[in-house]
């Protein structure tokens, strides 16, 4: 057993840390989040040149062929810098959906472009019901000639407005088991009948959209894999994206802890650094415990994804439940211990606080995942 990172992974960490310090400092983050795209072509290109957009994809598809334990390192650094933009949606949602559900032709068409940074992708699965399970997929796809016609609304879609292709989860048939009859489709940008609306969000570093489909006609080649059997790969994608999100949250929480400890060492009150008071010190200690535990369970979940162990789903849900609560607590405590300055727009803490809150509700909150844990351990 070895519960640590290897030399290559440590190197990836220090490379990414330096990269984001130079290329995506908070002043840049603020510029990016003010714009609609959340990214500049230049920064996107540089990230792609590092190989990161292809990190988890196979070498035959232009990627680096690495695993989730490697990815965790990069995601932690991205969360630490609250990097805005479509990396998450392109790699962990759209890209991963193509990898998990796509035909060989579809993989060859999209994965090399995603790996190289040439194309951006996302996944539209959740609907206005905000239902996490397969029952939530109600957008209708009916047979039309050799292809399909899709109508319905998708909500909370990451970066749909900048995506070159959107993987849309739709229902091709209804049965007793809601997991049957879900199909995934590749819908390229500009497809007639598809409308994308950017939504105002609390976390401006993460862009969410409404995607409307009205009588969108797709050819048979848009279907990913077998009709009706899209739920299994979709669930795999969501589980894996959840682990990546947890890693991002760990990185953000770690940064909030560091900012807070530094501040508590220099900020004076009643003639002493505030960090010398137990009211502050003990809260900082609680933050450390939250951060370290978040890392432990996230690393374990990443390992479980790479190894395909039977308890993979349980690991994912344990991680998301724990980290959702932990990042919220840590980022909230960070603001509290900074006092008034922490409540200002000028200070970076709100970027983390809002990212924590947004992440909490992405891919199921702690309550949802605790219930899944209860089911998986037969309570």
């Amino acid at each position, binding site marked *: *057993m*070895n*519960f*640590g*990172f*290897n030399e290559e992974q440590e190197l990836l960490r220090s490379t990414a840390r330096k990269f984001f310090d130079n290329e995506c400092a908070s002043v840049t983050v603020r510029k990016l989040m003010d714009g609609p795209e959340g990214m500049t072509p230049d920064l996107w290109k540089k990230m792609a040149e590092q190989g990161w957009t292809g990190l988890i994809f196979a070498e035959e598809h232009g990627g680096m062929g690495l695993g989730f*334990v490697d990815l965790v390192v990069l995601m932690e650094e991205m969360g630490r810098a609250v990097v805005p933009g479509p990396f998450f949606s392109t790699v962990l949602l759209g890209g991963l959906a193509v990898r998990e559900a796509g035909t060989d032709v579809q993989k060859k068409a999209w994965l090399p472009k995603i790996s190289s940074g040439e194309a951006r992708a996302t996944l539209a699965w959740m609907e206005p019901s905000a239902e996490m399970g397969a029952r939530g997929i109600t957008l209708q796809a009916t047979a039309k000639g050799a292809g399909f016609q899709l109508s319905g609304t998708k909500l909370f879609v990451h970066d749909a407005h900048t995506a070159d292709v959107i993987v849309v989860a739709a229902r091709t048939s209804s049965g007793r088991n809601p997991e049957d009859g879900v199909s995934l489709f590749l819908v390229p940008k500009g497809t007639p009948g598809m409308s994308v609306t950017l939504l105002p969000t609390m976390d401006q570093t993460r862009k969410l959209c409404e995607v409307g489909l009205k009588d969108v006609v797709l050819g048979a080649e848009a279907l990913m894999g077998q009709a009706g059997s899209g739920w299994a790969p979709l669930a795999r994608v969501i589980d894996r994206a959840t682990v990546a999100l947890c890693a991002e949250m760990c990185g953000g929480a770690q940064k909030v802890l560091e900012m807070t*400890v530094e501040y*508590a*060492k220099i900020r004076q009150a009643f003639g*002493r*650094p505030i*960090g*010398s*008071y*137990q009211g*502050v*010190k*003990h809260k*900082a*200690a*609680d933050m*450390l*415990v939250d951060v*370290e*535990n978040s*890392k*432990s*369970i996230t*690393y*374990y979940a*990443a*390992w479980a994804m790479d*190894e395909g162990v039977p308890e993979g789903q349980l690991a994912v849900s*344990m991680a998301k*439940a*724990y980290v959702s609560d932990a990042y919220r607590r840590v980022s909230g405590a960070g603001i509290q211990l900074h006092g008034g300055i922490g409540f200002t727009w000028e200070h970076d803490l709100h970027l983390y606080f809002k990212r924590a809150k947004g992440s909490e509700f992405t891919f199921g909150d702690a*309550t949802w995942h*605790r*219930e899944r*844990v*209860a089911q998986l*351990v037969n*309570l």
Partner: protein
Amino acid sequence: MDFALTPEQTSFREEVRSWLAKNLPKDWSDRMRVGSDVPRPEVYDFLRKWQRKMYEAGFMGLTWPKDYGGRGLTFMEEMILQEQIALAKAPPVLNILAIGMAGPTIIAYGTEEQKRRYPAKMLSCEEIWCQGYSEPNSGSDLASLQTRAEKVGDHYVVNGQKVWTSIAHQADWMMLLARTDTKADKHKGITYFLLDMHSPGVTVKPLKQITGDDEFSEVYFDNVKVPEANILGGLNNGWAVGMTTLMYERLALGFGLQVRLRIALDGLVDLAKRTKKNGAPATQDPNVRQKLAQLWIDTEVFKYTGARAITKLLKGELPGPEASAGKMMWVEGHQRLQELAMELQGPYAQLGRGSQWAVDGGVWQYSFLRSRANSIEGGTTEIQKNIIGERVLGLPKG
């Protein structure tokens, strides 16, 4: 990163598993009942024999050097052993203060003679150890302790009092911190002694706890003679030696506590399944499910944070102040678990041992009450947070 076991580790696990299956007394869990957390006085004799049996099978002191009665294995084997103990719901180790604290400290600081004299008898449970740290006026501020040891000829004469001394009434030896230099700075005038509890002048007065049991005691020293050869780690060096002990304590706790938390959780889940709420098993109640799932998650998280600490140890790093985090987590989780056990029982939670109506013979009430000590013993939660704040995060002292 790899959680898989090597073939050798797998075969060690099988060895432990089959030995436990063969040797674990069948009525053990009935006698102690699920969820019980700490050896109660009535089972000391049983636990002494059980530890002896474990020792004879080669399962005590896995990480200790072979020369001193151990097996010279790594913390990985220790973790495997502890995991199997949890799965089998085997009894806890009675001589835990010796195994977890005194032994490693003697191995780290002892003379060759001390290392050959003491550790092996700890493992076999021939000699039980207690810890003489806290005093009536020195708890969290341990360095203010006042028990004195004065040099007279080739020995020291000890006078003073210790308190909250667990299993003192069963103990043969004590790790004693006593002041040997009253003029020095409070951290610099303390010496660590190995004290024979059977020496003339040692009086043990059991203290009745809120559980009604007297698991710990006051210990009085009235001109107790301790040979100079029983100093561990040098004169006036007791603070450093004592702190090593505490680091080992929290490390040992890290292994042991995770096991105890898992056993207690399994007991709690079993209780919840047996308990009816609104006509259905309590495990179907959404609120109970949430609480149980959170405890399940916290127990696993605790395990993996422990595994990260073990990885550091396997790479040759010493146990550090990070262990305080593990202790703190366990305390919080375990107290919450015991609260939930009471909540599940509702009004029945009030009934204790001796009532035919008491759930599981009242054992939950006992372990609930006992759990209140968790955030005090072995360093209060407040002290752990100071340690994390100051020694891990580098915040200034108050």
